[in-house]
C-alpha cells in the first residue's frame, strides 16, 4: 500500500512547475503596473442588485462592469495601478444599499462606490455616501441627481436622466403618434419622474395628458387598471419595470384586442425579455425608447460592435453563448462608460488614495465633452459639472417583425433643460 503523504510525487512537482510558469507568464503584468507609486489596486465598490427585483439588471450590470474592468486592466489600469471590482449585493433594497455604501468605505477600503440602478436604492444610499465623503457614481437614469436632491459626492456621468429623455422624445410622440396621452407608470420615484416630466413636455408640445395611472410596484395583475384608460386616448405611454412587466404588456394586448391606442413604451418594460416571447406579438408597430439600440442597426458604429464583442452580447442583444439570456442593453452601457469616466477623472486628478477623493469629484466636474468612442460606445455625451449629470442622444425604435428598428435619434441639445442645482457651490 502506498502512503500518499510522504515524499515529493511527480504530480506535485508538476503542479509546482505549472504554478511557476503561470507566475512567469504574468511577469509582463507586474512590469506594467510597477511604474506606479503604489501597486495597490484601485478598489471600486460595485453596489449590485444581485438579488431582489433588480436581479435581472444586476446580472448584466455585473457582466458589463467585469468586461470594462478587464479592458482597463489589460491596458495598464488606472494611473498604473490595477483596478479591482469589489461587488456587494444590496438586494435592491434602499436600507441595505446604505449599509453596502458604508461597508465599501469602512471595511473594503474602496476608493469609490459605483453601479446602483434602482432609484429608490440610490435615494436610500446617496446620503450615506455624502456623509462618508465617498464618491458615489450611480447608473440609475433617475432625475434625483440633477434635481439637487442628493449631494456633491453623488454623480451620474454614464447614463442620461429621465427628465432629459422624455423632454427629447415628447416632440416625436406628439408629432407622430398623437396628442392625447395617457400615462401608466410604477408608483415610486422613477415612475414619478416620468409622470411629472413627460406630462410637462407633452403639454409644452401642445398635447394633452388625459390620465395618469400609478401602479404599485409589487402588482402582478394589471387588467383591472386598464378600464381607467380614457377612450379618447391616442397614445398610451408605459414605463413599467420589474418582474411583472411581461404580464403587464401581455394583458395590455389582451385588453385592447387590437383596437387600442398607439403605444409608446420605455424599453425598461422589456429589458432582459426577448422580443419574440409569447404574448408580445401585439407590440408589432409600437414604439420604444432605447438608451442604446438592443438589436444591431444597419448603421451600427464600430464602437457598438466592439462593445458587444467585449461584453459577450450578440446582434440581438442576448448572451453569445445563450441566446435565451437577453441583456439589459438599453441601460448597462452606463456601467462601462462610468468606469471609463472614473478612469479619466482619476488620471486627471493624479488620484493616489482616499485622501484625493475630493479632487476626484472636482476632476469629474471638470469633464465636459465625451466623444463617441470605445470608452463611450452609446454615443457622444456632454457632462454638466454643476448638476453632476451627463446628457446624450436618445433613440426611438419601432417594432417591425419582432425587431427593434431605430426610427429616430434625438440630438444632445434636444435633451437639455435649465440647471436646477449647482453642486460645485456645495462644500466638499
Amino acid at each position: 500500500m502506498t502512503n500518499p503523504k510522504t515524499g515529493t510525487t511527480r504530480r506535485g512537482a508538476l503542479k509546482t512547475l505549472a504554478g511557476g510558469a503561470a507566475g512567469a507568464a504574468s511577469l509582463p503584468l507586474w512590469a506594467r503596473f510597477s511604474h506606479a507609486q503604489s501597486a495597490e489596486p484601485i478598489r471600486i465598490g460595485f453596489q449590485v442588485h444581485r438579488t431582489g427585483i433588480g436581479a435581472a439588471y444586476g446580472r448584466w450590470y455585473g457582466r458589463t462592469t467585469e468586461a470594462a474592468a478587464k479592458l482597463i486592466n489589460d491596458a495598464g489600469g488606472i494611473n498604473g495601478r490595477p483596478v479591482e471590482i469589489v461587488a456587494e449585493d444590496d438586494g435592491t433594497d434602499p436600507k441595505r444599499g446604505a449599509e453596502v455604501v458604508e461597508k465599501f468605505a469602512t471595511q473594503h477600503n474602496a476608493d469609490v462606490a459605483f453601479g446602483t440602478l434602482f432609484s429608490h436604492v440610490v435615494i436610500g444610499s446617496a446620503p450615506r455616501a455624502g456623509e462618508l465623503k465617498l464618491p458615489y457614481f450611480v447608473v440609475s437614469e433617475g432625475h434625483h441627481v440633477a434635481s439637487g436632491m442628493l449631494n456633491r459626492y453623488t454623480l451620474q456621468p454614464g447614463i442620461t436622466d429621465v427628465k432629459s429623455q422624455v423632454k427629447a422624445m415628447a416632440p416625436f410622440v406628439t408629432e407622430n403618434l398623437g396628442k392625447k396621452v395617457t400615462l401608466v407608470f410604477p408608483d415610486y420615484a422613477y415612475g414619478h419622474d416620468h409622470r411629472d416630466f413627460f406630462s410637462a413636455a407633452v403639454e409644452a408640445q401642445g398635447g394633452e395628458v388625459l390620465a395618469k395611472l400609478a401602479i404599485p410596484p409589487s402588482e402582478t395583475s394589471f387588467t383591472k387598471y386598464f378600464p381607467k384608460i380614457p377612450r379618447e386616448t391616442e397614445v398610451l405611454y408605459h414605463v413599467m419595470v420589474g418582474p411583472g412587466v411581461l404580464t403587464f404588456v401581455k394583458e395590455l394586448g389582451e385588453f385592447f384586442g387590437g383596437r387600442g391606442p398607439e403605444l409608446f413604451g420605455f424599453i425598461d418594460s422589456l429589458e432582459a425579455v426577448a422580443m419574440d416571447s409569447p404574448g408580445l406579438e401585439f407590440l408589432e408597430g409600437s414604439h420604444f425608447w432605447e438608451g442604446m439600440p438592443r438589436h444591431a442597426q444597419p448603421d451600427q458604429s464600430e464602437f457598438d460592435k466592439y462593445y458587444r464583442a467585449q461584453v459577450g452580447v450578440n446582434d440581438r442583444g442576448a448572451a453569445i453563448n445563450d441566446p435565451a439570456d437577453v441583456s439589459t442593453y438599453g441601460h448597462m452601457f452606463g456601467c462601462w462608460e462610468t468606469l471609463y469616466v472614473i478612469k479619466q477623472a482619476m488620471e486627471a486628478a493624479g488620484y493616489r488614495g482616499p485622501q484625493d477623493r475630493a479632487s476626484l469629484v472636482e476632476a469629474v466636474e471638470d469633464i465636459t465633452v465625451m466623444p463617441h468612442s470605445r470608452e463611450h460606445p452609446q454615443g457622444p455625451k456632454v457632462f454638466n459639472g454643476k448638476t453632476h449629470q451627463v446628457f446624450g442622444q436618445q433613440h426611438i425604435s419601432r417594432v417591425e417583425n419582432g425587431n427593434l428598428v431605430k426610427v429616430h435619434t434625438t440630438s444632445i441639445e434636444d435633451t437639455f433643460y435649465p440647471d436646477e442645482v449647482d453642486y460645485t457651490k456645495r462644500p466638499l
Partner: protein
Amino acid sequence: MEIGPYIMLASLEGAVTAAVLALTACGLSLVFGVMRVVNIAHGEFFMLGAVIAWWVAQGIAGHPALGFAAALVVAPVVVGAVAVAADVTILRHLDYDPERTIVATIGLLYIIQQLTLMTYGPEARPVQAPFSTRIALPWLEHGPEGWQVIWPWGLGTTTYKLAVIGAAVAVLLGVWALMARTRIGLLMRATQMDREMALAFAIPVERVYALVFGLGAGLAALAAVLIVPIQQAHYLMGGDPLLLSFVVVIIGGLGSLPGTVLAAVLIGLSDGIISVFFSPTLAKILATLLVGLVLVFRPQGLFGVRAP
C-alpha cells in the same frame, strides 16, 4: 369605462386570483389541519411549481399545449416529492414541534429561493398558454330603444383565464372527494382529529404526514402551473401567495376546506374590486383588518370548529 362593465371586468380578474389562491391556500390548510405545521415555505413550493413548469415547457418541442400538459403533471409531482423529502429529512426529526418547524420551514424558504436564483436566474420567464383566445364580453344597456346588447371597449377575458377558474374548481372538488370519499382521506381525517388514537389504531401516521406535506406542496405547485402562462415564473413570486394564503386560511378557518374556498373567493374578489375603485393598498389594509377581526371575534375562523 362605465361602472357596470368595469365591475364585471374586475370581478373576472378577481375570480382568477381567487381560483389560484383557493388551491394554494387549500394546500396550506391541509398541512396545518393534519400536521399542525405552519409551513412558511409554502410560497416557495408555489414558485418551484412555476419554475419547473418553465423547464418542462422549454424542454418539450411542438405545440405549446404539449409542454403545458406535461408541466401540469410533472411540476406537482416533483414539488410533492421535494416536500416529502423535506418532511422525512427535516420535519420528522423535529417531532413536528410547532415552533421548531416554523424556523425549519423559514430555512427551507431561503434555501429553495436562493437555489432557484443560482440555477434558474433572476429573470421572469413566460410559459406559453396552451390556448388563449380573447373573448369580448357583451353588456346590457338600457337605451332609447329599450334594453340592448352592447360590446363595451376593453370588456373581455381570455379562454385561458376561464379555463383556470374551471380547472381550480375541478381540482378542489377532487380534493374534497379525496378527503371525504376515499380510504386515504379517512386516514388523514383520523390523524387530524386525534393523532394518538390514530396511532393506537395502527394508522401509519408518519406516512400520512409525509403524504399530506407532499400533497399540500403539490397543490401549491399545481396552482402555480395554472397561473404561469398569465404571470411569469420568477424566483420571488412566492411571497404574495404565502401571505394571501395565510390570510385566507385564518379567515376561512384552519383545516376547513369549504371555509378556505369561501375566504379565497372573498379575498380574491374584494382585492380585485377594491384595488380598482380605491387603491390596492386599501385592499390589503381591509384584508389585514378582516384577519384581525376574525382573530378577535372568531378565532377558529368562519368555518372552523373550536378545539375541544
